[in-house]
């Protein structure tokens, strides 16, 4: 992130944020390097950090921190060490009161940027040229990884090792197997995150470039239309619901639809179906599609409590009930793919027709590239965030269950209140005492820690994190920050203004541009002689009689009028920022007061 000429004051220093009452000791949940530590205050305090509310909207449980470390290791590795994105290395994170703030590491040396650009052009170019083939391999890689996760066994600790250990080739004892399984589980997670980011930057980059291009040419185009023009038709994300629709139809065809009555639980439905041949064959059919399509997550996020349809079938069963009753009512429930394709092509053609010839060429090329990368953008969520991650959390739950059976935890779910190192430590003690026959301390050590952390997390959830901390950057230049989080210079300035708390009037953004200057409040046309060069005109409204003063002023603010009012038209003619229809500018602003007129956003700030 470029932080030229840092402005102090708009956002709190990360070192001055107070711990909410009752949350003392929250730091113990997080790694030492995740904290704003006095020993690196000088650098950390002078950077711009923003709250990553997109991925981490609530305080992090200790174990879930792995879903910060691992992705930021992976994204940095690809971005900084593989593709060498010229102006941006990876992203640092810090934890404040359980919330995650991030900050990119910029590359500022022009020679270094040029050096990296060569790597980037070559390597990214290779990916774009070979995308379909590479992406095909990626899918195979992900499926193999998910298979391996499924096959990873979390061994129990037996009273006596079986004969194979005593007499067989495989002479590993359970202590080693258990620690190995835990280590392997963590490494599989790392692998998933590595795969996750292999295509993400380039995929989002291509799509983002198309979206930006559209916004540049067609500033008001709804995001939805951009997405519609690019969206894939036959992507895996749509398959789960397509299968549910097929099963709903099958239920009606085989006469078992009565089981899908409103208000029934999945268990009740399954029990009734199991009583008949037709019902049993429907259940068999369901079983065939559960893997992979029931690996949908019930929520969208990186926390352990997002489960899959397999874990919580109430969501797919509710859909089944809905589909069955819609079909019986004679409704069409199939996704109208032909219509979607027609509409997507119509939108693309009509928008292209509005552009000039050169722009149309870029538009069409970018659209084709975006359509090529978009299956990854849509499908990685299913493979990584849903399919792999929900199963991976369940794998960790198996270790939790083992710790709970051994008295280290009161409940298997409590495993997520320990950091991954603490879990490793608890497992170490568990296998140690299993081996020695000694008395573990864990059952006395961990439960009070877990209880305290649950209490802290609950209280931290009530704290409102500021959108940003540290110094306000002059400009946001990190392409990743802009592309992945939408944190632009304008966004940061808006946050800063909100923090400053200056009075802001809003109106219609009538003529773009931002100007600061002294206000001149003019209440009627006979006062226009008072207007001096360089002032900002603040008035009720203007008429043609006001024409002579537009060559003197630097911006216009009116109480009434729309974007086609006289003041707006003339301001655009003169290239002056204008905000019209503020309702109360002449009442709220005094002559001589310094104000900032943002004619692009439609805001007037009293400074």
């Amino acid at each position: 992130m470029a932080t030229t000429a840092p402005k102090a004051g708009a956002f709190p220093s990360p070192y001055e944020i107070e711990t909410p009452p009752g949350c003392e000791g929250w730091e113990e949940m997080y790694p030492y390097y995740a904290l704003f530590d006095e020993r690196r205050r000088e650098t950390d305090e002078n950077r711009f950090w923003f709250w990553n509310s997109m991925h981490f909207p609530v305080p992090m449980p200790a174990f879930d921190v792995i879903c910060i470390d691992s992705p930021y290791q992976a994204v940095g590795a690809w971005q900084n060490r593989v593709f060498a994105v010229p102006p941006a290395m990876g992203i640092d994170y810090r934890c404040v009161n359980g919330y995650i703030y991030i900050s990119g590491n910029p590359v500022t040396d022009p020679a270094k940027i040029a050096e990296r650009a060569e790597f980037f052009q070559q390597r990214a170019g290779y990916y774009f040229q070979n995308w379909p083939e590479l992406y095909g391999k990626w899918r195979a890689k992900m499926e193999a990884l998910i298979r391996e996760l499924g096959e990873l066994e979390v061994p129990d600790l037996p009273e006596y090792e079986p004969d194979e250990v005593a007499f067989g080739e495989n002479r590993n004892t359970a202590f080693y197997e258990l620690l190995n399984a835990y280590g392997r589980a963590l490494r599989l997670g790392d692998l998933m995150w590595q795969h996750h980011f292999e295509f993400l930057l380039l995929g989002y980059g291509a799509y983002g470039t198309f979206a930006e291009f559209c916004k540049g040419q067609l500033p008001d185009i709804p995001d939805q239309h951009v997405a519609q023009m690019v969206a894939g038709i036959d992507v895996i994300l749509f398959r789960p619901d397509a299968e549910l629709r097929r099963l709903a139809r099958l239920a009606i065809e085989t006469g078992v639809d009565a089981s899908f009555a409103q208000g029934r639980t999945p268990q009740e439905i399954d029990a009734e179906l199991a009583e008949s041949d037709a019902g049993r064959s429907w259940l068999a059919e369901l079983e065939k599609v559960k893997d992979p399509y029931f690996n949908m997550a019930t929520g969208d996020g990186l926390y352990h409590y997002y489960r899959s349809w397999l874990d919580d079938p109430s969501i797919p069963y509710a859909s089944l009930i809905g589909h069955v009753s819609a079909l019986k009512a004679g409704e069409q429930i199939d996704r109208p793919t032909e219509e979607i394709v027609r509409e997507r092509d119509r939108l693309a053609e009509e928008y292209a027709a509005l552009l000039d010839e050169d722009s149309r060429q870029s538009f069409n090329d970018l659209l084709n590239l975006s359509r090529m990368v978009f299956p990854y953008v849509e499908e990685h969520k299913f493979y990584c965030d849903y399919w792999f991650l929900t199963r991976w959390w369940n794998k960790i739950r198996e270790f939790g269950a083992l710790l709970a059976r051994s008295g280290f935890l009161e409940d298997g779910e409590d495993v997520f209140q320990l950091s991954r190192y603490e879990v490793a430590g608890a497992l170490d003690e568990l296998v140690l005492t299993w081996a020695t026959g000694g008395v573990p301390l864990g059952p006395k050590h961990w439960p009070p820690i877990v209880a305290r952390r649950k209490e802290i997390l609950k209280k931290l959830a009530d704290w409102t994190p500021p959108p940003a901390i540290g110094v306000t950057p002059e400009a946001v230049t990190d392409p990743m920050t802009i592309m992945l989080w939408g944190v632009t210079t304008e966004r940061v300035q808006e946050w800063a203004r909100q923090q400053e708390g200056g009075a802001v009037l809003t109106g219609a953004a009538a003529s773009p541009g931002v100007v600061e200057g002294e206000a001149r409040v003019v209440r009627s046309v006979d006062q226009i002689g008072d207007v001096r060069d360089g002032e900002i005109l603040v008035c009720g409204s203007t008429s043609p009689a006001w024409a002579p003063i537009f060559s003197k002023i630097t911006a216009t603010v009116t109480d009434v009028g729309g974007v086609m009012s006289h003041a707006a038209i003339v301001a655009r003619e003169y290239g002056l920022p204008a905000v019209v229809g503020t309702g109360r500018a002449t009442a709220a602003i005094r002559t001589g007061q310094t104000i900032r007129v943002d004619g692009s956003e439609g805001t007037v700030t009293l400074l």
Partner: protein
Amino acid sequence: MSGYTRPLQQLSRSDEPSFGGKSANLGELLAADIPVPPGFAISSTAFQEFVADAGLERRISSAVAGVSARDVDAIGRASHAISEAMRFAPVPDAVRAEVEQHYAQIGAAAGVDSPPVAVRSSAVGEDSADATFAGQQETYLWVRGVQHVCDAVRDCWVSLYSPPAISYRARLDQAEEPPTMGVTVQLMVDAEVSGVMFTCNPVSGDPSMVAINASWGLGLAVVGGEVTPDDYLVSKVTGEVVREHVHLKDVEYVPDPSGGGAVRVDVPAERSERACLDQLGLLRLVEVGKRVERHFGSHQDIEWAIARGGGELFVVQARPVTGLAKRRDKPKPQSAMSLIMSTFGAGSKGS
């Protein structure tokens, strides 16, 4: 009939030099089957005839000699002197006779005596597009009776020497050149709702949007900036309303019940806060806007009115959009790959 006037439907683009942009455009719209209220046009020669008949050339040229665009007082004095002289000069008889005849024809076709008409200036020449500037064109609404029509025509001519018009020409270093102008006379629509639409977003420059401003009553309130109109942005591509701001529209202009002119009245509270267009109204406007834009081949600034009672939609004026804000960040045409490279700061010229 001699050459001072012509029915609107007989005009086309090529008549712009004689009759002004507004009248010529209305003729074009009628030829393209766009609903436009009937009317006639008065040529710029009528104005020249008026100045010559009254012997005003000398007085005018001495009044505007050497005025500066920023000297508000000097402009005011020049304007006052010229306007006073013009107001007492008669409309030439030949012009008056033609006006009388056309006006009677409008009344006969509409089935009313003394039909209400709008009298508007119709700018001529290369400044026709620039004349959007500052709404620097007079409009007289709900004018009834030949005498009042002729007075309004003369008032349009007088407006060529209003302070903003003088200031505008001075800014272009044309203060001393004799201006020319036509006049449009058009049957009035008793508008329940009226407004303006641009066949692009005039603020962002987006060509895929139609921007609509609408308010109650005759068009004066919107054009004059006396109310903050309801503000809509509608996609040409899908007809979706992308933005909708309904404002308080507490005044409107309605025909003066005493007979002529328009009067400003308060809008009852229950109507002032209501949206004055519904989805169907917006779609009809977008359709007409797209047709007008297609016909002229450029973005259009269109004044429209929806008639009280029948709800019929009329276009009362169309002109090219001018003063379009410079597009921000409009990407220069580049190959797709180099655009993607610049997203990552790896453009061909470094970052």
